[in-house]
């Protein structure tokens, strides 16, 4: 039987299949954070259930945390209370807890791979839709709701029907100035935000083979934005090289055993998918979004499409453009912006800060722009300092903050004011996502850097030799 990568991992984790119902899926590793876990722990308490395998769950604080003065008590009482609940719940149940101030603290989808919690062939869940990030390692990883968080804590299983399978292949190579973020925004612009709903995606082809592990994480991270439950990429030498020697990766003979399994994780020649899509890497330009969902993206050089030329209802489309203060047919190049945000589980890793630095080096932040540079973890923060990027940022008048989810969803104080435009390397441009009334333009770290120094939307290729 020819199997896809997804089949191999899913099928090997099915404890039991229910006829005309879901599979009971065993979860290898579970990550929790402060926002979607407290009600799950409350549920356990009400049912008088223990955590079945506390060693398989990992807790980090990220969604709510301030990005300035993390050594001080958290000022917002509600956030402080939620962070305290996570700490108490983790401690009471013997779950490893990397809270605020811990040297391993950071965004859950950044620290998972950093410490080797993320491994090929594993099933990984978290109460956060961007759990799809971990698929970059050939894991089945996806976001779950709080009821399911409770199930995993209590039984290490969830119950879901097996999704359909889609393969997205991109061959050729990427043009200069085109990043993994652009690849993902390109795909979503083609599929729309519901184009992959009901599917689990495998990314294949030369473009993904050439990407670094961090680039692959950015692409898999955004799988949910086209509706897919998750996305994954077959592990290769790059994957094994990345994870080797990390704290939670197998050591010694266990490594050899694991490698023997991991090397079987690829889609067999002749295995079939429910849907296959193919693109050419050369088609992709630096991308930017102009609307209020991640599917409303386009090449930075194009003009905003007319309602008549896009799928879906004209009323919803026009409502979206009204919210953004844009009109059909306008060019995005040259539009003024107010804020720049570099960070999030999508683009908050060291390569993203290197990319940003490559453009701002030797230049100055535009006076009309407020910029927040928020590393995805303490490890990323340390690398920024060690590699001399901090000096580049400071010389260019940029402020580096402490790690967390920050302005991606604005649960802390990092809110974009109403009506203001933010070029953001995060993942969602929904109405009010970055603060009530905020207007988000999703883009790569290169596009964000070009905007940060010019104060307007600028093709980053202008700055690349």
């Amino acid at each position, binding site marked *: 039987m020819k199997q896809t990568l997804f089949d191999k991992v899913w099928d090997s984790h099915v404890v039991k299949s229910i006829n005309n119902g879901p599979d009971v899926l065993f979860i290898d590793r579970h990550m929790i954070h402060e926002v979607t876990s*407290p009600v799950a722990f409350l549920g356990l308490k009400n049912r008088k259930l223990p955590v079945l395998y506390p060693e398989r769950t990992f807790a980090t604080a990220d969604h709510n945390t301030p990005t300035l003065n993390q050594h001080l008590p958290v000022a917002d009482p509600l956030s402080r*209370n939620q962070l305290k609940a996570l700490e108490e719940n983790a401690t009471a149940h013997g779950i490893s807890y990397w809270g605020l101030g811990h040297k391993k603290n950071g965004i859950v989808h950044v620290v998972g791979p950093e410490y080797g919690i993320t491994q090929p062939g594993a099933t990984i869940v978290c109460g956060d839709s961007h759990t799809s990030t971990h698929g970059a390692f050939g894991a089945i990883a996806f976001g779950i709701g709080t009821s399911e968080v409770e199930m995993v804590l209590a039984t290490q299983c969830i119950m879901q029907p097996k999704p359909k399978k889609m393969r997205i292949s991109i061959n050729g190579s990427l043009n200069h100035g085109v990043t993994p973020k652009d690849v993902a925004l390109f795909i979503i612009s083609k599929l729309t935000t519901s184009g992959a709903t009901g599917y689990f995606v495998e990314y294949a082809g030369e473009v993904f083979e050439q990407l670094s592990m961090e680039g692959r994480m950015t692409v898999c991270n955004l799988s949910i934005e086209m509706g897919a439950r998750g996305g994954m990429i077959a592990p290769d030498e790059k994957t094994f090289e990345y994870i080797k020697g990390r704290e939670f990766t197998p050591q010694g003979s266990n490594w050899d055993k694991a490698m023997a399994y991991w090397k079987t994780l690829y889609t067999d020649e002749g295995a079939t998918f429910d849907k296959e899509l193919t693109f050419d890497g050369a088609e992709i330009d630096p991308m930017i979004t102009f609307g209020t969902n991640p599917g409303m993206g386009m090449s930075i050089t194009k003009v905003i499409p007319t309602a008549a030329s896009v799928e879906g*209802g004209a009323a919803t489309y026009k409502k979206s453009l009204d919210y953004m203060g844009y009109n059909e047919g306008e060019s995005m190049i040259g539009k003024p912006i107010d804020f720049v945000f570099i960070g999030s589980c999508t683009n908050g890793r060291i390569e993203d800060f290197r990319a940003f630095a490559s453009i701002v080096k030797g230049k100055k932040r535009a006076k009309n722009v407020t910029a927040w540079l928020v590393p995805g973890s303490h490890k990323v923060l340390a690398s920024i300092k060690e590699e001399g990027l901090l000096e580049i940022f400071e010389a260019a008048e940029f402020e580096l903050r402490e790690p967390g989810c920050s302005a991606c969803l604005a649960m802390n104080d990092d809110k974009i004011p109403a009506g203001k435009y933010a070029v953001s390397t995060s993942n969602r441009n929904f109405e009010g996502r970055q603060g009530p009334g905020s207007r988000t333009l999703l883009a790569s770290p290169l596009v964000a850097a070009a905007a940060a120094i010019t104060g307007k939307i600028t093709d980053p290729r202008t700055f690349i030799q």
Partner: protein
Amino acid sequence: MAYDSFSILTSTAVPLPIENVDTDQIIPARFLKATERVGFGDNLFRDWRYNQDDSPKADFVLNDATYQGKILVGGHNFGSGSSREHAAWAVYDYGFRCVVSSFFADIFRNNCLNIGVLPVQVSTEFLAEIFEAIQDDPSTQLTVDLHKQSIVLSSNGKSEFFDINDYKKDNMLNGYDDIDYLSNIKSEIEGFALNTPL
């Protein structure tokens, strides 16, 4: 968390004919800070429902007494975005027991099924008819029968079959939840775990 069972619901409906209604609209992130499941209904569609000074926006459907009921009817791709179960809680806590749309985002649909809100997916054409009927006469009723997996529009008697797997159907008819099922097969899970090293 156990919930009330669902069998047949006949109700007027609240129309929200907007596509891609995302979880950040259903409940904005700044209202996710509770450590208990209380008060989410108050913030359902917060930023569409209230101005920044907390005064109600007169033109939003939840502020229009003409439209009431236990069924919310939304446009294509309802519930896209985040995995926050708070979105489903907000829908339930506000008083809706059923959401009708021509397409649901995956995680939102799952979350609804896990807490006792029935997602009913209908054809694009039927959805348009439902919106039109409610617009013409807000007292139009919908009857959702989970046993028969049918949804009937009172204005013209038209109906459609909707899909739900047998397991989830049985759960909703009885108010059962997955965690009870899983707890009862704990020994099988433990056996499986032995062969699945960390």
